[in-house]
């Protein structure tokens, strides 16, 4: 049912729960899991790279090691996983990757939904996505 599942993560407990749900669903439907994390590109002053090239700067080691850890968790459950470190705002990062890989499901944690915060990540995704969205109860 869900061939291509995208999950947004950071190093929070809510993201870990969302990942768990995404792994289960990818396993149930035999799909591929795309794990996405957003990072802030290093600033010009610290990296020496002009801002117009910041998109091509390698993601920081934090993002890489987070993705490595989480993708091995998926693979240990026999789920095919790909990782994406995407510069920019988390909601945008997730929907950008979802569009690129033609996802049929995006999984996000619910943290921030009930407080009705405009601009919260799950809220923006639920409103902006072109595919199914699973908001996993995490709070």
């Amino acid at each position: 049912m869900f061939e291509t599942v995208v999950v947004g993560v950071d190093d929070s407990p809510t993201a870990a729960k969302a990942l768990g749900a995404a792994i289960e669903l990818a396993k149930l439907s035999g799909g591929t899991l795309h794990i996405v994390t957003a990072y802030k590109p290093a600033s010009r002053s610290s990296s020496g790279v002009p801002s117009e090239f910041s998109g091509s700067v390698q993601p920081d080691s934090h993002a890489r090691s987070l993705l490595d850890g989480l993708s091995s968790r998926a693979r240990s459950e026999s789920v095919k996983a790909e990782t994406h470190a995407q510069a920019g705002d988390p909601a945008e990062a997730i929907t950008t990757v979802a569009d690129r890989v033609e996802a049929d499901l995006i999984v996000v944690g619910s943290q921030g939904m009930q407080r009705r915060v405009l601009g919260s990540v799950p809220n923006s995704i639920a409103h902006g996505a072109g595919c199914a969205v699973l908001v996993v109860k995490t709070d």
Partner: protein
Amino acid sequence: MYNVVVVGADDSPTALEAFNRAVEFTKMSGGTLHIVTAYKPKPPGGSEVPDEFRYSMGSTLEADVLLRRLADLATAQGVATELHAATEDPADALVGVADREGADLIVVGNKGMKGARRVLGSVPNSVAHRATCSVLILPTT
């Protein structure tokens, strides 16, 4: 993982699309599908039925017919169902049934979630914000 799944239903094409995918999902997860429809009780026109009986005379029949029809579709897929006709507002009905049944998941169509139709108070929006379980929002628009 998703043993108790709640889905909302009315007689619109988008609701039917969401329903069919909810059936597919519940079949995949091996759970029971709780089908909820909300209806506005209206007194049958012209008849002299006392208020306290109007629920059983008004649109309850339509709600029951709809629920039975959808239950048959689910049963044909081998999915177990329970049926709920509620007189509350649709979002209240979905969240209420989900809470009472200890649901793991509510499935809704995304009608009203995107773009110009991003209306506060739309059913998927309200459910996504108020649910105490996970919510699957399906693209049906």
